[in-house]
């Protein structure tokens, strides 16, 4: 897997949306995604639209009776992006943990080009 940061999904709300959609479900319904992410309707709508426009998320709208139902899923491009971003974050976490250990022993934290790209 290509571990690299994606500026589009770096904001925490979009990271949550994509990370939840990448958890293994085929489709996730609006309310389930909202409740799991712990965000409001408007925030989810706003960021899901950005992700949809970027081609990372596919949206399916339907209705049960009079109640509208919106379902989300990752596109292949979105899946590649979130997997790469999560792998990069995991690497960062490892580097950070190793750096913290090294700092205790007097070594510097290694430089990461991905960190520079996002700063």
């Amino acid at each position: 897997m290509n571990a690299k940061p994606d500026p589009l999904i770096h904001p925490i709300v979009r990271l949550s949306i994509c990370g939840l959609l990448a958890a293994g479900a085929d489709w996730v319904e609006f309310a389930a995604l909202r409740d799991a992410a712990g965000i409001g309707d408007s925030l989810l709508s706003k960021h899901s639209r950005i992700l949809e426009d970027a081609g990372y998320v596919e949206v399916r709208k339907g209705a049960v009776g009079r109640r509208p139902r919106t379902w989300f899923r990752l596109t292949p491009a979105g899946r590649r992006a979130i997997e790469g971003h999560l792998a990069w974050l995991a690497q960062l976490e490892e580097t950070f943990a190793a750096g913290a250990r090294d700092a205790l022993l007097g070594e510097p934290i290694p430089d990461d080009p991905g960190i520079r790209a996002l700063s």
Partner: protein
Amino acid sequence: MRDLASDRAALEQLRVQRERLADRMRAPWWYLTGAAILFAVAFASPFSSRYLPPGVPTWPVLVAALALAVLLHWALTRSTGISIGIPDLTYRPGRPARIGMLIVSAAALLTERFLIDRGLLAAAAVVALLAVVAGVVSVRAAIRGIRQHLRQGSP
């Protein structure tokens, strides 16, 4: 832009959010009851094929069972807000439970037929009952596997 500590916190937050999503994937009582009815229909088939008079159609029962299976799957998707598609044998989460149930089903049906042929109806009924219980347990195990998969995440 976030700093390193915030990125670590974001990753930790995603773990918590995935826990919350996974916790939605639980089988309600009506789902398990419906599954038990479907297994009961399946494991009653050796009795019906032996004791129903010739000419009595069984296809309405099969159609009703199929409709119930589709309805249960749709209702679980609606109630959890999580769609996992049709969990066939290529779908990895919960696969050991599904394969185990296929083996138990085949063994139970053969055993029932064997016992019915020898007139041991009570023993055959007990086997059918145990197979229904095993079926419901396997459904719970399969959903637990899916929940675990959602918790850990694909990447």
